[in-house]
């Protein structure tokens, strides 16, 4: 006996009421109690998004936040069975529909993405690559922390209080986000484009500090000097310390 069309319609009516608040009559229901489902479903959505995006939530007014979250949950069919993926779907939904609030807060999407990245890096499945913790910084190939992500922003959402960001801040900002192997905590590093480029090269394969400096110099059309090597080595030392670079390639 297949599911009857009428049963499907009743199930769909209840689900759609929970998502949108628009009620289509269902036989035999308790009209007063059914409102609990809308309340409970929406409080799960609101709790999830509010806790995932504390900065964005603090930036916009309560009314604006409610309009964003209600719009999202009514119009976007959440596709992940895992509720903690919802913030990512929220970000993607807002970036596709170009919500009017994005004109008022031109950096809102970047702020949401920045907040999601922190969750994403903290939660993501472990990535394991071979490396040695001990090595010679001047001669051994360096290994990038595989649990890292490179990001470019047009607004300094990672540097400035969101309420103080203005159109005048529009520029190019480069950063990395990585997870510390022991504690699992997430760390952000603000970088120049040249340093970020070095990390991109390392992401492809382990590489020595000299080869890194030489390649970036040639890409930028700068003459390679000892001073540049010294600056790069300093950056690599800091990155080893912060575990953005986790160690040295095994021979």
């Amino acid at each position, binding site marked *: 006996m297949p599911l009857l069309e009428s049963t499907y319609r009743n199930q769909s009516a209840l689900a759609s009421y929970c998502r949108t608040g628009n009620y289509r009559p269902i036989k035999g229901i308790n009209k007063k109690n059914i409102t609990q489902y809308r309340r409970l479903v929406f409080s799960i959505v609101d709790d999830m998004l509010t806790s995932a995006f504390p900065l964005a939530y603090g930036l916009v007014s309560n009314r604006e936040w409610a309009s964003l979250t209600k719009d999202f949950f009514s119009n976007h069919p*959440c596709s992940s069975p895992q509720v903690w993926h919802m913030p990512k779907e929220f970000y993607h939904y807002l970036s596709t529909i170009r919500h009017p609030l994005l004109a008022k807060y031109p950096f809102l999407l970047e702020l949401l993405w920045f907040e999601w990245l922190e969750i994403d890096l903290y939660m993501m499945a472990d990535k394991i690559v071979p490396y040695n913790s001990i090595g010679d910084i001047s001669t051994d190939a360096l290994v990038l922390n595989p649990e890292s992500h490179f990001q470019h922003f047009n607004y300094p959402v990672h540097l400035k209080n969101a309420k103080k960001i203005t159109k005048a801040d529009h520029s190019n900002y480069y950063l990395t986000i990585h997870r510390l192997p022991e504690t699992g905590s997430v760390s952000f590093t603000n970088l120049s484009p040249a340093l970020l480029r070095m990390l991109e090269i390392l992401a492809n394969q382990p590489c020595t500090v000299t080869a890194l400096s030489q390649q970036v110099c040639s890409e930028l059309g700068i003459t390679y000097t000892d001073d540049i090597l010294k600056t790069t080595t300093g950056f690599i030392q800091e990155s080893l310390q912060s575990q953005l670079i986790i160690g040295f390639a095994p021979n």
Partner: protein
Amino acid sequence: MVGIGFRKDFAAELLQSNTLSPSFIEVAPENWIGVGGYWKKLFYKALEKYPLYTHGLSLSIGSPDELDYDFLKKVKLFLTETNAEIYSEHLSYAKCDNAHLYDLLPIPFTQDAAMHVAKRIEMIQNVLDRKIAIEIVSYYSPVAPEITEIDFINLILKQTDCDLLLDVNNVYVNSFNHQYDAKQFINALPLERVSYIHMAGHLQLSDTLIIDTHGEAIIDPVFDLFEHTIKKLGRDIPVLLERDFNIPELEELQLEIDRLQTIKQDALKKENYAAA
């Protein structure tokens, strides 16, 4: 055996001290699949200490939508990797028209829905290659019912060989909300199919409505219903204390675990005397 729902809120404390000593822990696979880093480390430490029971949230057995086979395969892998002893899911739907709702909506009590659910349980068991346990959920309104709740459940159980997860608090909540006798309801279930029991607290919103929150302590009438259930069962089965919100000191949770253990032991002792 009395276990506890493994919550991030007290995960670290549970592992660091012996204040709380459950016989097993229960998690929702949805909350742990694909998770690495800090939480994975902690979770695997817990797995070294406790057997794992699992209780799914999003498989949406009662949904009119297609079964999500990709997700089901991930669940299967998770159950293998974690050596999970039980996989249970809810007799409800959490997804419709391709949208997840992340909550448990009541299935219409109709014959066609019961057949549909039974068929899906079979499909799930085939993929997972194991028997699952289904849980009767609490609900706040019937949806276009054509048969009674008990007939609906028993029809499903007749059509398939899955186990039953009996959430005693859910039966209490439903008996209050829909005005029936909780003990009679339990007596009318095929109790030989019950493999696992859930116990939890709830919130009474009004004279006519209780919401199943898992955010309060278990109340005495629910403990009484638990005693009744164990006596009727006449055998020892695993019991879980569910506490998802408003989590108290672990000492308090341990007291609830102790009380469940005592009630169960006493009820079974008396049953054995009666049988002897």
